[in-house]
């Protein structure tokens, strides 16, 4: 699935100038705890989170996330957007809450890849 398809499924808005919407995504990680995110070892992952602070972007940078999706209609601050743009990490925002966001993506075919 690509980031642009994810954007469509979640009726999301892109908050960064570069959305790199044709980026391929293999799986997603839904978490509000960054250490849980860091424990996620899969490539080509997007993060769905209700946590909204600059450390989310730093974490995304460290583990090479394809993009960050803020759920439940939360809107990132300019500081977060600036950091994401500097690190080339697209930000999407959706009004769906976490459970529904994950469910919609799963139903649309964004599954779980087995641990290597």
């Amino acid at each position, binding site marked *: 699935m690509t980031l642009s398809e994810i954007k469509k499924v979640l009726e999301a808005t892109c908050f960064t100038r570069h959305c790199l919407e044709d980026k391929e995504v293999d799986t997603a990680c839904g978490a509000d705890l960054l250490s*849980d995110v860091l424990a996620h070892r899969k490539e080509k992952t997007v993060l769905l*989170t209700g946590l909204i602070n600059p450390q989310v972007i730093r974490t995304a940078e460290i583990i090479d996330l394809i993009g960050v999706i803020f759920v439940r209609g939360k809107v990132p601050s300019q500081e977060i957007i600036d950091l994401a743009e*500097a690190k080339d990490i697209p930000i999407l925002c959706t009004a769906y809450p976490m459970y529904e966001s994950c469910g919609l993506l799963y139903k649309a075919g964004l599954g779980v890849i087995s641990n290597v």
Partner: protein
Amino acid sequence: MYDKQPLPRVQDVMTRDVISIAPDLTVRQAKDLMRDKGISGMPVVDRENALLGVISVADIIQAMENNNLNAFVSEVMTVNPIFLHEQDTVGYALQACRRYKYGRFPVIDEQAKVVGVLTVGDIVTRLAQLLRIDQVDEPDEIKEPKDFTTRIYECSIQSMNFDLAGLAASNIKKMLTGLGLKGTTVRRAAIAAYDAEMNVVIHAYEGKLSAKVTPHDITITVEDSGPGIKDVSLAMQPGYSTASDRIREMGFGAGMGLPNIKKSADEFTIESTPKGTTLVIKIFID
């Protein structure tokens, strides 16, 4: 924000002297122009300089094979070409180069007018200049190695400073990527460094992170000045955390830090006394 210098943008690097061609000229004219100017492709623009397509040597060869040199440029050009905006970062442009395997991109401004062309050569030339400027303005914390195969990075870590938290891990990641190490190795080192750095920020008074990279392994050492971990074996259990509610609100304190570090490392030792904790994380480079 710790990035003192703005990231280089496409407009800082691109060639502004654009050789372009009109769609209603012939492929033969395009071929002659490209030969004259010694270029292997160019944007096709309308009278307002808006981007219509690109024409490359490959398009011209194909036209020659089809005996079609008298066709209009508009008939053989690639329409909907991949382009860059002048405000795009050079990093983004490099990603585009890798992704699309093109060596040249038209650059457009906000009105979709062609204002430049960016080639991989432009990036290499200008980045070399920019990097030299960087080193003067912002002394890098990477020490000049005596032995060119070993790199050392050191960074102090301040307790509860969440503005700078993650900087050391980010710099280590940059350094390792720059050395051309495998993505999975870089990621393991970055995750271990980040978790260890966050542990100091959250739990310790102050600390120091150092990373030593040889062609064989990466050693990340994180030392802090206390108060130490009361029960190390408990702290190694996934989910065990002593972080405050405030820390948890920021998304930390999942109790996955030390287990994560151990999982990322090939060798991991931890020593803790009330005077401080030292982690040594070793990751082998294959």
